[in-house]
C-alpha cells in the first residue's frame, strides 16, 4: 500500500484537522507501517519543539516605532503650518495685486495707455455704477479748480466742459460720447492735480455728495504735479450733483 496519501494526514493530525474517519484510517495504517510510524514520531518531536519556542518581543520595539511615528507627526504638523503660512501670504499678495491693478481687460486700448486707469466697484448709498474710466493728462495751462467732479448729461454739457481745456486735445472724448450714449448714461468727470506719472487712479465710489478716487502710489515714482482728467460713464439714476472729491490711498 502506498504511504503517500497518509503523509498529509500525519501532518494534519498535528494540527487537529482530521475527521474521525481520517483519524481511524491513519491509525490503522500506522500500526502496520513502520516508515509512517517513524515519520509521525519525528513530526511530533518537531511540532513540540517549534510550538514552544515563541519569544517575547523586545521592549524597545514599540518604543522605537512610536518615537519615529511621533517625530514624523511633528514634522508633518510643521510642514502644514509652513504651507498654511505660505498660502496666506500668497492670498494677501494676490489680493493686494488685484486691488491695485487697473482693469486692463475691459478695454484693450488701455494696455498701451499708461495714463488710463480703471474703476473698482462702487459702494455706499445712494450710489451709481461707474464704468472703467479713462485718464487724460491735461496741459498745465488747463488746470481749473482741482480737485473737482462734474456730472455731464448731454452732448452739449460735454462739449461745454471740454472747452475749459483749450490747450489739450480731447477730441477723442467728444467723439466717443454722442447723443446715443447720453440717452441712457451720463459722464462723470474728475479734474485733479496729482504727481505727473507712476500713480494710478481708480474711481472707487460715487455717492450723493462725493466721489472717491482710489489712488495707488508706488514706492518709487515722479513727484512733479500735473493736472489730470478722469472720465467715466455712469448711469442716469445716480446722484444729481457732486459736492466733493475724496482721495484714498491703496
Amino acid at each position, binding site marked *: 500500500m502506498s504511504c503517500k496519501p497518509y*503523509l*498529509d494526514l*500525519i*501532518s*494534519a493530525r*498535528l*494540527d487537529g*484537522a482530521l475527521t474521525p474517519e481520517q483519524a481511524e484510517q491513519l491509525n490503522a495504517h500506522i500500526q502496520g507501517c513502520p516508515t509512517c510510524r*517513524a*515519520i509521525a514520531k*519525528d*513530526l511530533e*518531536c*518537531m*511540532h*513540540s*519543539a*517549534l*510550538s*514552544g*519556542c*515563541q*519569544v*517575547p*518581543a*523586545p521592549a*524597545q*520595539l*514599540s518604543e*522605537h*516605532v*512610536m518615537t*519615529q*511615528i*511621533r517625530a514624523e*507627526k511633528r514634522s508633518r504638523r510643521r510642514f502644514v503650518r509652513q504651507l498654511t503660512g505660505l498660502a496666506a501670504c500668497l492670498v494677501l499678495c494676490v489680493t493686494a495685486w488685484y486691488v491695485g491693478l487697473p482693469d486692463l481687460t475691459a478695454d484693450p486700448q488701455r494696455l498701451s495707455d499708461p495714463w488710463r486707469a480703471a474703476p473698482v466697484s462702487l459702494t455706499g448709498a445712494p450710489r451709481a455704477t461707474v464704468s472703467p474710466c479713462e485718464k487724460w493728462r491735461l496741459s498745465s495751462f488747463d488746470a481749473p479748480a482741482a480737485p473737482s467732479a462734474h456730472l455731464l448729461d448731454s452732448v452739449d454739457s460735454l462739449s461745454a466742459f471740454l472747452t475749459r481745456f483749450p490747450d489739450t486735445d480731447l477730441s477723442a472724448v467728444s467723439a466717443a460720447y454722442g447723443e446715443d450714449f447720453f440717452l441712457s448714461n451720463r459722464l462723470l468727470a474728475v479734474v485733479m492735480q496729482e504727481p505727473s506719472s507712476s500713480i494710478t487712479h481708480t474711481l472707487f465710489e460715487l455717492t450723493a455728495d462725493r466721489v472717491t478716487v482710489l489712488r495707488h502710489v508706488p514706492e518709487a515714482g515722479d513727484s512733479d504735479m500735473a493736472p489730470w482728467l478722469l472720465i467715466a460713464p455712469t448711469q442716469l439714476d445716480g446722484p444729481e450733483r457732486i459736492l466733493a472729491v475724496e482721495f484714498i490711498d491703496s
Partner: protein
Amino acid sequence: MTEQELVLLAKQGDDQAFAQLMRDNEKRIYNLTLRMTGNPEDAMDLAQDTFLNAWKGLKFFKGDSAFSTWLYRLASNACIDFLRRQKRRQDISAPLAADSEDEDRLPEVPDDRFRPDTQLEQQELRRAVDEGLRQLSLEHRQVLVMREVNGLSYQEIADILDLEAGTVKSRIARARLSLRKILLKSGNFSS
C-alpha cells in the same frame, strides 16, 4: 476597545490607538521575523519596518481582512523581500534553501553538536529545528513559522498568503517532511 475601533482611531491619526494595536500584535510579528531571518537584529529591523509601513499605509487598509492579518502580510512580505535580497548578495554556491529542487547544490551542514549518538534534550532539539528552519525554502519556512510558532490556522495563513486553505494544508505537510529530511541529514533524527 475592539481592533476595528482602534484601527478607526489610528486612521484618524491617534498614535495611542496605533500603539495599542502594536502591543496586541508585536509578539507574533517579532516571532515571524525572528524565525524567518534567524537573526535578532534583522528581526527587530523588519518588525519596526512592518509597523512603520502599517502606520503610513493605514489609509490603504480597507478592512476586508482583520488588521492583524493585514499586518502579518506586511511582515511576511518584508521578510521574503529581505531574504531574497540577502540571498542575491550571497555566493551563488551557497543557497539558503536545503529543500529546493536543485539538491545537488545544497550545502552539507555538518554540526557536531547534533551527532546521531548524542541524546537530544528538548533544548538541543529546538536549536536543531531552528537551524533546520533556516535551511528550508522561504515558502516552507513561512508556513511552518506561521503554523507552528505562531499557531495560525490554515484559513488565517491562507488569508495572509492569498492561497486556498487546502493548498496551505498540503504545503505545511511538505514543509514538515522537508524539515525532517534536513534533520535526518544532520543526524538529529535517525532513519
